[in-house]
């Protein structure tokens, strides 16, 4: 995709569809690499399904549950000489510890590296679209760490819907402040 933030949106949507109550989105950047981890506590997948989700034809069936997001993310990571992995524990086999983790590592110095883009916008879209599930977003940069935990915000809100315009606007400012704040 044109920006990694769109991939993040797509993969996290899969997590929500899998019934996740918490979806964690972690981005860690250093000088040369970007590591993206999306982890959920949704229903997970059997080993057989995990193997097939990187197959673009599995995902393009009309009855599909996932989009082309996984094969495209894998390709984008591998094009830079990075790596991709997906692990999952299905609810049937692991009733107390289930979910899926997608990990992609990119070499940022590769000329075909897809820029991260507006990741804040993706996070806001997710929260607004799925106000009843929680998201933990952690973006580690060289000089700062940007964090957003909807569970903490929810606690403060005391019943005010998190997807409402005012709250989304507030979260937008909260993220923006963390990204632009000079004192750290």
């Amino acid at each position, binding site marked *: *995709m044109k920006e990694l933030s769109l991939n993040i949106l797509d993969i996290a949507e899969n997590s929500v569809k899998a019934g996740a109550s918490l979806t964690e989105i972690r981005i860690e950047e250093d000088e040369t690499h970007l590591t993206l981890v999306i982890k959920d506590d949704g229903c997970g997948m059997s080993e057989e399904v995990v193997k097939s989700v990187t*197959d*673009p*034809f599995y995902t393009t069936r009309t009855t599909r549950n996932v989009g*082309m997001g996984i*094969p*495209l993310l894998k390709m984008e990571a591998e094009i830079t000489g990075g790596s991709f992995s997906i692990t999952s524990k299905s609810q049937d086999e692991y009733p107390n510890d289930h979910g899926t983790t997608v990990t992609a590592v990119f070499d940022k110095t590769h000329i075909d590296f897809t820029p991260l883009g507006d990741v804040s916008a993706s996070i806001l879209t997710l929260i607004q679209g799925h106000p009843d599930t929680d998201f933990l977003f952690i973006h580690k940069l060289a000089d700062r760490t940007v964090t957003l935990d909807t569970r903490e915000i929810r606690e403060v809100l005391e019943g005010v819907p998190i997807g409402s315009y005012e709250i989304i606007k507030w979260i937008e400012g909260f993220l923006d402040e963390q990204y632009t704040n000079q004192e750290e």
Partner: protein
Amino acid sequence: MTVSELIEKAGFKAATLPEPDKEITGVYIGDLLSWVMGRANSGDVWITIMSNMNILAVASLADTACILVAEDVELSQDLLTTAKQKNINVLLTELGAYEAAVKISKLI
């Protein structure tokens, strides 16, 4: 014009041609697969230099007439086997995307 007629008239190579009679109505050029997915039209000759398995899924989703791989990019046997299974025409040319499109434009 059909894909097999195009091959004959334009001198492209057929890497695999499971649906030779598919009708060609246009051309789309692009390498960013997520972009192509939403923009290539049914019946297009899709010109690209990408050669991984995902291009077959994109061609299938967009229902393009064929994929035309430009600049003689090498294709894996795996890709060709899958293309055949999924009924996706894959053509090859040594031309660049622009030259190939110009050639097609004169024919259709």
